[in-house]
């Protein structure tokens, strides 16, 4: 919201002594940060950020109240004509509790237009003056005092005016020229021909003030914030009026704003008052809120005097009575946000300055809770993969239905995971797999010149369950491109599936991981994090004895069928070897060549034996012979 410095100083003269920068810092320290400063119409204007709970601050007067309370200086009294209210010129019926007061007047407009200084004020706030005094005065009042008012062309109103809920099927062409289809939850101002304004939001086009208007009917009411906010959202009609009524206006300003409006029209265009009257009464004020010294001290972090607190709150317009050890605070009619003792404590701290809050660490009352094993497991997995050369990715949780369908597990349809209001088709389904994102990211990296791409992601994927999406943390890994070839010791070769299964094994995955080809020379797998082993809680594992005697290594070069399973062969060999002595059995080389018999390949099987004694050559020979016999039982032959 723009605040013009000169206009602010008219409300709080003490502000004139502040430099613009000082004023900005003062406002920020009160909770109204200044987002920008501009020079317009011969003066500085400040773009002040107003929080959603402070509708009362959305005006020069409101901002001046804050400055006055901090500086402990008086505001300029509001100057307005005293109007004698009389018999209604136009009957006003209040048919909904959402509008308890409606203050109004009818005036005959005379010659004259909006004064130059008012036009300049409006221009400084980026509000274009219309040079129609009734319209400009209403607008100027809104910015200066924060209370929205409206002027109707009185001669275009048919019969009595009522404030009521819209009827099904009614429509209203608003001032922006758009025809609005009204619903029964819309509060409207209506004459006997139908709605003439959306209450608290925008007037109707049919009764608007034009250059031809000679008589105006003024509206200065108070509307319940809820229907105003709902209507503004429903019709996407966010106006200066709806922002203020929606955040809670001051019901006692209804009559004051009407009087100010009449005064301006009388001064600017010699308007003649035909009649002024008010329907209904302002709603009762809020009940007093108690504030104890104990609560104030707890929140403030140190004991504060209740007398000082009362004085601060009085500067904000509150009535403060000390009742025993408790302050009874009655908030002013413009403050709807002071409902509980904590609100009052905040005001005391705010006016005192948050910089005076002391600083202390809270004491630890119980033993700290350990980090959850699942969380630690993900952290360790991430660090392990990074150590293995993989880059952690973070990608969006939603993808397109087509891509999702290509990767999601069978039976995991997208229906239960689809967003109703996505940013677009490509972001409309909560993903059922991490692999599409890894594939896209890997390809993007390869396209951009990466020789090799190693990626992983740890994130939830979603299943369609009857009660909604079911989340499961997954680890997805992708590896592709060219390995090596960048130094004199590492020949270049394409990434193979086996590379990735080695990674899965390193992470503790038992057996073959569910590898998937994600493209030419690009492979991936994903597994539930919970299926991977968790590290034990011990920092140092239990001692496992090891032999200090020599280790004996023997190789068997075997010719085996191309279809031979390595696992089956090792199971057969292990079965005949002494478990306590065999330290390792693995295939260390695979040789396939036309020089070998057709349909056969050569495996170099390496065995390592060790015991708590020196092994004798003959006994090792016996084990090797037994292992060979076991291999031969599967069709393997010793390679010549």
């Amino acid at each position, binding site marked *: 919201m723009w605040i013009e410095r000169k206009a602010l100083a008219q409300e709080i003269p003490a502000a004139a002594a502040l430099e613009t920068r000082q004023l900005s810092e003062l406002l920020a*320290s*009160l*909770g109204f*940060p200044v987002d920008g400063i501009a020079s317009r119409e011969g003066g500085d204007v400040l773009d002040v950020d107003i*929080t959603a*709970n402070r509708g009362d601050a959305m005006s020069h007067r409101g901002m001046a109240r804050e400055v006055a309370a901090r500086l402990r200086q008086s505001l300029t009294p509001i100057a307005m004509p005293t109007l004698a209210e009389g018999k209604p010129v136009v009957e006003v019926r209040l048919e909904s509790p959402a509008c308890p007061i409606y203050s109004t007047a009818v005036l005959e407009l005379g010659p004259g237009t909006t004064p130059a200084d008012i036009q300049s004020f409006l221009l400084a706030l980026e509000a274009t003056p219309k040079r129609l005094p009734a319209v400009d005065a209403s607008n100027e009042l809104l910015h200066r005092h924060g209370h929205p008012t409206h002027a109707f062309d009185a001669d275009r109103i048919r019969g009595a005016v009522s404030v009521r809920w819209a009827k099904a099927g009614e429509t209203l062409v608003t001032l922006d020229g758009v025809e609005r289809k009204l619903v029964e939850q819309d509060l409207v101002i209506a004459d006997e021909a139908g709605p003439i304004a959306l209450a608290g939001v925008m007037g109707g086009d049919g009764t608007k003030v034009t250059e031809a208007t000679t008589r105006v009917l003024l509206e200065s009411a108070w509307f319940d914030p*809820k229907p105003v*906010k*709902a209507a503004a959202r429903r019709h996407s009609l966010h106006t200066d009026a709806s922002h203020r009524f929606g955040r809670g206006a001051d019901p006692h300003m209804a009559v004051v704003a009407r009087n100010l409006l009449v005064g301006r029209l009388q001064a600017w265009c010699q308007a003649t008052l035909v009649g002024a009257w008010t329907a209904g009464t302002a709603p009762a004020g809020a009940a007093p809120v108690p504030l104890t010294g104990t609560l104030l001290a*707890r*929140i*403030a*972090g140190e004991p504060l005097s209740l007398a000082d607190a009362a004085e601060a709150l009085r500067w904000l317009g509150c009535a403060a009575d000390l009742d025993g050890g408790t302050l009874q605070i009655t908030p002013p009619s413009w403050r709807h946000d002071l409902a*509980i003792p*904590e609100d009052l404590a905040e005001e005391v*701290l705010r006016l005192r300055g*948050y910089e005076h*809050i*002391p600083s*202390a*660490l*809270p004491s*630890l*009352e*119980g033993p*700290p*809770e*350990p*980090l*959850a094993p699942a*969380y630690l497991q993900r952290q360790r997995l991430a660090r392990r993969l990074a*150590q*293995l*050369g993989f*880059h*952690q*990715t*973070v990608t*969006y*949780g939603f993808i397109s239905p087509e891509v999702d369908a290509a990767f999601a597990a069978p039976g995991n349809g997208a229906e*239960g*995971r*689809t*967003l*109703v*209001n*996505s940013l677009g088709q490509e972001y409309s389904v*909560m993903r059922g797999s991490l692999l599409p994102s890894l594939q896209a990211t890997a390809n*993007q*990296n390869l396209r951009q010149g*990466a020789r*090799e791409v190693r*990626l992983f992601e740890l994130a939830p994927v*979603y299943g369609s369950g009857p009660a*909604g*999406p079911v*989340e499961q943390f997954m680890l997805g890994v992708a590896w592709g491109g060219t390995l090596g070839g960048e*130094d004199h*010791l*590492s020949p270049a070769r394409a990434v193979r599936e086996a590379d990735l299964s080695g990674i899965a094994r390193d992470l503790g995955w038992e057996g073959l991981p569910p590898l998937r080809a994600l493209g030419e020379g690009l492979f991936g797998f994903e597994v539930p994090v919970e299926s991977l082993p968790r590290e034990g809680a011990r920092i140092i594992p239990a001692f496992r004895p090891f032999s200090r005697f020599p280790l004996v290594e023997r190789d068997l070069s075997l010719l085996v069928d191309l279809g031979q399973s390595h696992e089956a062969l090792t199971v057969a060999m292990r079965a005949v070897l002494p478990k306590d002595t065999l330290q390792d059995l693995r295939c260390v080389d695979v040789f396939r060549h036309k020089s070998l018999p057709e349909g056969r390949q050569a495996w170099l099987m390496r065995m390592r034996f060790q015991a708590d004694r020196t092994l004798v050559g003959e006994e090792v020979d016996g084990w090797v012979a037994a292992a060979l016999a076991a291999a031969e039982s599967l069709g393997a032959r010793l390679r010549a």
Partner: protein
Amino acid sequence: MDQLLPVEIVEAGRVFPQALSACVDLDSLLRLKGVYVGREGSHAAVLMDLLKGAPKEQKRELGAAINALKQQWEEGLKARQLELEAAKKQLASLADRWDPTLPPPVPARGALHPLNRLMDRLVDVFRPLGFHVEEGPEVETEAHNFDGLNIPEDHPAKASSDTFYLAAHPELLLRTHTSPVQVRTLLRVAPELAARGGIRFLAPGRVYRKDEIDPTHSPMFHQVEGMLVGHGIGMQHLKGTLEYALRALFGPHTEIRLRPSYFPFVEPGCEVDVSCPLCGAQGCRVCKGSGWVEILGAGLIHPNVLKYAGIDPTEWSGWAFGMGVERMAMMLSQTPDLRLFFENDQRFLRAMGGLD
């Protein structure tokens, strides 16, 4: 003597020196030797045949010429052999020698994602103060995301223009902040709060808001929230804790500044600024010349949030804070475009997320 020899032998003898020098290894020298002085198919054999078939009176002179020629060839071959053997020996000694100026093989380097790295760092910072980590689902109920946090029924955040809802489950949404974790945790620990003497935890995680993707907005981003509930907790504890944590994060000389603000789930509420860690509060592009950078929102937990969880706000109080991880990462790294964090270019990840 040339008149006694056939033309091809004369020519072979003429090119012998070039043929000899063209032998760059011992194998090729052996082949040349075969041609010139070997027994079969060689020039020597031709010469022997010539000698056998020569008239008696020429034999003596021809024999002498042939011997001289063969001696010349053999000497040449021997000399070249010595040369090549020496070269081979020298090469072998070079091959054994390691050249320390050759580029070494570099192990593959991976990286944690910078956003995860920053969240891990925050957890590390708060651990010594007794904070643990709580997590919750990304698909949440309206009750956990809004109602339990004192967010009014008509709050704009509830609108489908700001929040993603599930088509088949209208009561479910993608959480708009990590604060539902507060609600879930408070509901869970409420019955045992007295026994455990309060609770303090961080809630890091991904959240979703319906923002178009641009250099400063993303429909998915990360937050870290912190919450502490105990006896007699006030603003001084919030200030003290944040001062400790932000100094651990940004350096020991970091100053913090609290400014009043409003969030429905805290009262009093505040924005927290730190003295600009990039320019030492001297004023720069990041702090827009002010020396201060807004870093997080915080406040004392609103009594309604405690009441919703079944915790008596007259006995217990606490504070909470929440910060945007991307925003802080961008500020600290001066990354100009938020989208870089989600594009996952390995060059960016490597530069930003190397292991400590």
